[in-house]
């Protein structure tokens, strides 16, 4: 019979040294451009808040809502740069509130505004109806000539090489946050312009080797309100939080249309 001491398993404690997190605090003023739908007007309101170097703009806005002004309307969902719900203009640049830290911006006053080029709903919440309808208008899905085979009789998945995947992969990271649409000067000049997001998706699907709908899709964007409204200011690509590079996609579509080559 084994003694009690020999049956006890020896437990070794492994000590892992975690990196030290230095919390730095500072007080900042949030200057928020709010929209009142009843009066149909904008007004600015200021809030003082103590933030740390770990606080995001979204954290700060929610803190303001909890502790100072419950009437402040903010739209958000995932809090981690995936859903694209919390796009807003922060210190003059369209950014995701959940991915921007006020501490890193380096200013003592931080301006927060609703996204431009879209209608306001309330405060910094904006209406994306037109943005989404533009997206839908370019048929952003896989089109096959034989729909029966695609949806009913599919025997095996459509094969694709790594190289073919690289042709469109970066454009498939779009989270539809609308930052590119808000930043585009041509959307401001031409209200009917489809915008960088929709056009980038037109390229994304047309460049997919499995897709057979490029002809139909390119016809839709080969218009004055399609790719030909783009003057390559590149602002869309500079503000994109996912590095989708819509400006590149739009120019690839133009190249496709002018040369007749799919890729």
């Amino acid at each position: 019979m084994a003694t009690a001491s020999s049956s006890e398993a020896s437990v070794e404690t492994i000590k892992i040294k975690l990196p030290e997190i230095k919390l730095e605090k500072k007080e900042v003023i949030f200057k928020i451009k709010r929209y009142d739908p009843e009066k149909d007007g904008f007004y600015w309101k200021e809030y003082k808040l103590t933030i740390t170097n770990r606080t995001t703009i979204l954290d700060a806005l929610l803190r303001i809502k909890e502790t100072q002004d419950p009437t402040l309307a903010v739209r958000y969902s995932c809090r981690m740069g995936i859903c694209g719900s919390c796009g807003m203009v922060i210190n003059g640049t369209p950014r995701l509130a959940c991915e921007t830290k006020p501490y890193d911006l380096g200013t003592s006053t931080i301006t927060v505004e609703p996204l431009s080029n879209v209608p306001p709903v309330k405060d910094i919440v904006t209406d994306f109806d037109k943005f989404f309808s533009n997206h839908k208008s370019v048929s952003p899905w896989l089109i096959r000539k034989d729909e029966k085979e695609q949806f009913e009789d599919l025997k095996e998945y459509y094969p694709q090489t790594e190289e073919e995947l690289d042709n469109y992969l970066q454009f498939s990271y779009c989270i539809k946050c609308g930052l590119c649409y808000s930043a585009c000067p041509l959307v401001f000049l031409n209200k009917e312009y489809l915008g960088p997001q929709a056009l980038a998706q037109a390229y994304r699907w047309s460049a997919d080797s499995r897709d057979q709908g490029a002809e139909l899709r390119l016809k839709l964007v080969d218009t004055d309100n399609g790719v030909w409204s783009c003057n390559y200011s590149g602002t869309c690509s500079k503000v994109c939080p996912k590095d989708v590079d819509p400006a590149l996609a739009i120019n690839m579509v133009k190249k496709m249309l002018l040369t007749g080559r799919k890729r």
Partner: protein
Amino acid sequence: MQKTRRVSPRWGLWLRGLDEWLVIFQKVSGLALALYLIGHVLAVSTALGFGHNLTQQQWNAIIFGVLEKPHIGAVSVGALLEYLIGILLAIHGANGFRLILMQWFGIGLPKPSRHTFPRATPSPNATAQRVYKYSVAIITIIFIILATYDVFGALLGW
């Protein structure tokens, strides 16, 4: 809910980079050149009497009397106008050529690639694009110097 009115833009966003300035120059110079073209056709047509009986005196009266006679300092309005049009043409032409090369032939456009987080370089900041943009700026500056020499050279004692 408000449906038609859009949130006004932050203009500062469009004044930060050379790409944005090139778009502004392209639009403004294009509009100015279109207006000039209409004005030019009207001025010459008037000088030519719109196809009716024309004398050398009528032509001289319009071309030299209206366009060449008024002076701002030592330079005639006509010469000043041509100088400005020349600069606009240089900007519009050089940038237009850049856009044609890029959009038609795809020269200078990077190949789509997999991401390298954090922050892959957006295509407008790629090296080839920088070369394009700075070439446009350099060509325009050279043209401005040459045009200034041609129009104001004698005046400036060059």
